[in-house]
């Protein structure tokens, strides 16, 4: 029995696992979109928790709104809208990873590592954007909030998203060793 014959069942099993994971990732992306309201509530809770040590007063979530400055003279809340939510950033990464796994026999582990790093980067960037916006609001008022939320925050998120896409692709396509027809 040849090596190829011995490896074939393992390869088929590996491919089947990749396809299953791919379908799961695509399903997860669709689920996130469908449940984005609930996701935003969770996101508000996480954002409130993480912002708490860095802003004046206490923070508290209420639905998709993050309140900060509680216990001080200035209590402010900002709502995490659908377009501001991390869902918009994570969903395309999940779908892209799933689609790539479906169409090419990529190394599953590497794709998942790239996806984890990419997802981590966009989540961190968006949470930083929330945090900076709250700090700017308390420090410079609504002008500071506008500047950070709209300009710097948007740039941070776009840069993070670009980095995530590139890293996902980089990890997913690493160690691709083409076989070269008659020259292989």
């Amino acid at each position: 029995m040849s090596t190829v014959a011995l490896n074939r069942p393992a390869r088929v099993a590996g491919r089947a696992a990749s396809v299953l994971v791919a379908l799961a990732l695509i399903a997860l992306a669709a689920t996130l979109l469908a449940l984005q309201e609930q996701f935003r509530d969770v996101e508000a809770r996480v954002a409130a928790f993480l912002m708490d040590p860095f802003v004046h007063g206490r923070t508290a979530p209420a639905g998709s709104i993050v309140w900060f400055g509680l216990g001080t003279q200035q209590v402010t809340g900002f709502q995490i809208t659908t377009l501001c939510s991390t869902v918009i950033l994570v969903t395309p990464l999940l779908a892209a990873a799933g689609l790539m796994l479906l169409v090419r026999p990529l190394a599953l582990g590497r794709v998942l590592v790239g996806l984890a790093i990419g997802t981590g980067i966009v989540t961190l960037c968006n949470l930083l954007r929330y945090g900076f916006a709250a700090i700017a609001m308390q420090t410079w008022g609504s002008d500071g909030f506008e500047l950070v939320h709209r300009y710097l925050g948007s740039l941070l998120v776009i840069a993070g998203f670009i980095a995530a896409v590139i890293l996902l692709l980089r990890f997913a396509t690493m160690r691709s060793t083409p076989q070269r027809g008659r020259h292989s």
Partner: protein
Amino acid sequence: MTASESLQALAFVMLVIFLSYVCMILVPFLRRKRDEDGDPAAFAWHVFVPCRDEEAVIEDTLDRLVTDFPLAHVWIVDDHSTDATAELVSMRASADARIHLVRRRLPEARQGKGAALNAAYRALNGWLPADADRDHTVIVVVDADGQLAPNALHQAAGPRAFGDPTTGAAQAAVWMSNRNDDRPIPGARGLRQWWGHYLVRMQDIEFRTTIAAMQCLRGHTLSVGLGGNGQFTRLATLDAIAGAADTPWHGSLLEDYELGIHVMLAGFRNVYLHDTHVAQEALPFTGKLLTQRTRWCQGGMQCTKYLSQIFFSRNFTNAGAIEAAYFMLMPFLQLAGTVLWPLVFLISAAQGAIAPGGLETWLATTAWVVPLMLLTGVLPFALWALIYWKRDERRGSILTALGWAVGYWLYMYQSYVVVIRAFVRLVLGRNGWSKTKRIAEYAPQSAAPAAAPQLEVVR
């Protein structure tokens, strides 16, 4: 999520994918190192020049090829010209054993450039001895107005190109030969001449920066695309493709890119040669330019039929398959963009109009988008012109560079017209195209005195 939010989210994701792609092509382009030369004498070189009604340029092209490349044989494929192209070449061929004329007549002729190149391939096979070393024979495709740089064969023979036995094909960089011609439209004046000059400059920027950068990325993903001019292919690779798919060149409107796909599917590498080039005429006419680009775009769309083969091929790298898929799907994404971007704007404006304060308040509150648009919608195009000015054609002051940058950003909007036209033609099944005329053919009679006496001699 509302429909409006969905559209805005989709637009944002498409923007980020585009910006990611720009970053991915920019970095390898800026960091690339010069390729080493090789010894052209290690190979046999055959230059194929497909021609149809090329009397205006063919003699100059022949002169350049036989002078600059004394090792090469030149095969002119006359595709049933109605002018004196065949006669001019025939005279030259009778005086120089390195010049060959492949004559095609109707009804076989005029079946496209791919068919003409296949005819040259058959003629070469008939001419070569049976024991020819086909691994060390390279076919070069040059347009009738193409000006191959004198170092082209040295670069093509280099260790990264045909010096590497896994290399099946190579593509030289493309420059515009009339880029510094202040009067690119014969006989035109004023604004028309200025516009023609602008279009020519923009095409030079496009080929020498943006397209070159895409090719540099493909050098890493091993998915370099072949163009119709300055295209090199190992004869043994063409044999392998012909063995698997009847002929080396096929029927897509983008037969050159299609050949590149076949080379990779057959298990060979395509490489990009940025340190040599082929110069060709840029089109100074809006209508002709849009027609040419529509043909290319439609051809690219036709190549999507290879997507499944690419995805299942073990000869494509994973990165190469993804890059090729993105390239082929790009026209369709752009098509979606032609609907998406205006729709997002209109919905946003409509929402502003019905909100408290009306349009005036909406305009005031959305003004923050403008700098972001400049950064994400203008800079990714404009930066190529700045790179071009700094690295390739440092002419005039920084104001010239800034003018080119704005001009290049605006020039890129032609792609929206092109992609819509290409899609409509694709849906309607319209595949016929007339050949693009050379600029010299637009010259007033008095402006082309050199051609006339020579034609009389032939006739």
